[in-house]
């Protein structure tokens, strides 16, 4: 009975050879503005892939509350978003890194107004070890060396004489990209890194493995301990508490930013205000980021970029 499938398959493989290659669709398409141009004025938000989900969720909520308004969110990376802001093809640029001075100068030159930065949420990750581990603090460089298997034994970083078991996240997660970017400085993880789906899986694995290390969102679970991280060998060790993350002293955290050319006005201002409102901040929390500390949230704290102003 199964044999009958064989000629059918032969036909199938023949058929596949015939059709022309499929139309190639790029996710995070770059033609969003083009599409937007044809329709009623839509607010475009473009940039950091890390922030796509956040902006998308906020936009859905915003559009539900404000019928008739359209917000188009696309990814592409922080650099892409900033480039689009410079070229005037997006109203808001999402960036998970601060703009460089040169980029700010370009915005001022091309758009005639200084880039304005709005922090919208905080992103950070913790490095965990088993709760019984004597290791209390590691520098960013030591963590990187562990994940590149340049350090393979805990005794090299002040722990017991035992091989380090390393856990990480799957390569489709934002946490993976952030860790790779900030800790490994774009170098590859060692092949020995065991990749698990989700922070919960990493926390669970570390809690069951005395000699392991893992990373993920700043979560608290039983059986694990988040270690204090030093920016470099001589810097003070900082624990990933909410205060330290918010104060910016914890090295593995960053602001997620939105940029506009000039002060945000009209639709862009309405959307930014909504992102910074309690509702918007709640979305940030549900997608795994930290809301801004209370004093910053509520109203959009327009921080006109100093570098650009100095360049004037």
């Amino acid at each position, binding site marked *: *009975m*199964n*044999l009958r*499938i*064989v000629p*059918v*398959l032969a*036909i*199938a*493989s023949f*058929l*596949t050879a015939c*059709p022309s*290659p*499929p139309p*190639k*669709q*790029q*996710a*995070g398409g770059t033609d969003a503005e083009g599409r937007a141009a044809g329709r009623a004025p839509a607010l475009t938000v473009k940039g950091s892939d890390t922030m796509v989900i956040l902006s998308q969720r906020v936009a859905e909520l915003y559009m539900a509350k404000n019928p008739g308004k359209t917000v188009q969110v696309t990814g592409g990376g922080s650099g892409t978003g900033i480039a689009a802001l410079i070229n005037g093809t997006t109203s808001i640029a999402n960036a998970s890194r601060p703009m460089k001075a040169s980029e700010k100068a370009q915005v001022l030159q091309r758009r005639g107004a200084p880039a304005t930065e709005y922090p919208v949420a905080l992103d950070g990750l913790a490095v965990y070890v088993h709760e019984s581990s004597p290791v209390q603090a590691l520098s960013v460089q030591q963590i990187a060396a562990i994940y590149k298997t340049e350090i393979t034994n805990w005794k090299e970083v002040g722990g017991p004489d035992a*091989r380090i*078991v390393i856990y990480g996240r*799957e*390569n*489709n*997660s934002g946490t*993976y*990209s952030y860790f*790779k970017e900030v800790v490994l400085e*774009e170098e*590859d*993880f060692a*092949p*020995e*890194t*065991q*990749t*698990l*789906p989700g922070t919960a899986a990493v926390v*669970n*694995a570390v809690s*069951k*493995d005395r000699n*392991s290390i893992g990373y993920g969102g700043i979560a608290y679970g039983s059986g694990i301990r988040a270690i204090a991280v030093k920016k470099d060998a001589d810097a003070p060790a900082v624990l990933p508490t909410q205060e330290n993350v918010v104060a910016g002293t914890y090295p593995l955290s960053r602001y997620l930013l939105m940029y506009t050319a000039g002060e945000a006005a009209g639709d862009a201002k309405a959307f930014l205000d909504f992102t910074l409102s309690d509702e918007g901040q709640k979305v940030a929390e549900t997608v795994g980021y930290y809301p801004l500390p209370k004093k910053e949230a509520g109203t959009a704290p327009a921080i006109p970029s100093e570098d650009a102003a100095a360049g004037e």
Partner: protein
Amino acid sequence: MAPADEAALKTSKPTTPAVGPRPPIPGLRRRQLIDKLSAWAITAVAFTAIAAVVLIFVFVVREAIPLFTDAEIREEVTPMGMVLPQPWKEGAEPSFAWQPVSTRPKYSLAPLFLGTLKVTLVALIFAVPLAILAAVFSAEFAPRRLREVVKPAIELLAGIPSVVLGFFALMVLATFFQSTFGFHFRLNAIVAGVGLGLTIIPVVYTVSEDALTAVPRAYREAAYALGASKARTAWSVILPAASPGIFASIVLGFGRAMGETMIVLMASGNAAIVSWNPTDSVRTIPATIAAEMGEVVVGGAHWSVLFFLGALLFLVTLSFNSLGGWYVARLRKKLGGIPA
């Protein structure tokens, strides 16, 4: 039905042979038509299943083709680059690496193939002896009543969702193995393989059991007549006679184990290491597809490579399953046992 419709039917079906010289049975044509239509409909449903298989294959292969034709993708990955070890950095030794998200994406298939094979072999080594011995027991030794309990119980294993088995392997088996043997990797090919073995035990058991019971009675009677004990008969007569069927069961189990996703995704650690050591963590092809498909650029190199892997997996498991199925069918015919 209105008479007008009857007339329409008659004209549309002029070739229907008349039912002899007797007066026609009222409504016979209509019933014949309904019969025919139902038969067609059922056939169409049956072919839908085959069409689904074909369409899935067509779709998967179509997405993988740009790997060989698209210039942009070929810049990022070449077929040679997937097969042969590459010097990934200037002056570095050529090696295999699976790092699709990287400043220089690395798509060696070797770690994934090796991982899949390793886990599958562990699963077979664990499951096949257990399943075959269980089949021998229930076919040859078990009293009828016990057999009626054992057989459905083992087959019930097939009904456990693989995510549950994966969770069991992750939480229970992994801890047990690590505390017993002290493996460096808590999640490794052995843990995943044993978890996977649980899914193939019912496959191997059912087919082997069928093969054993299909051995003609005369074989047993001849052995007993020569004074052989029950164990001797089972070992020297029944098992060899059923060996083609048992072989087929192993082939089927292999195909099933290779394509299984959830258990290995959860319990293998998913580290793409090139080694034959079963206590190392492994990354398999199905787990890679499941883990990475969510966020790739549609139509990009990574996307095509994943579909290519899917097509290969499809072909391998399909050929193993067809081979096993064909063998089982042939065997049943030959031994004149249970009709296929």
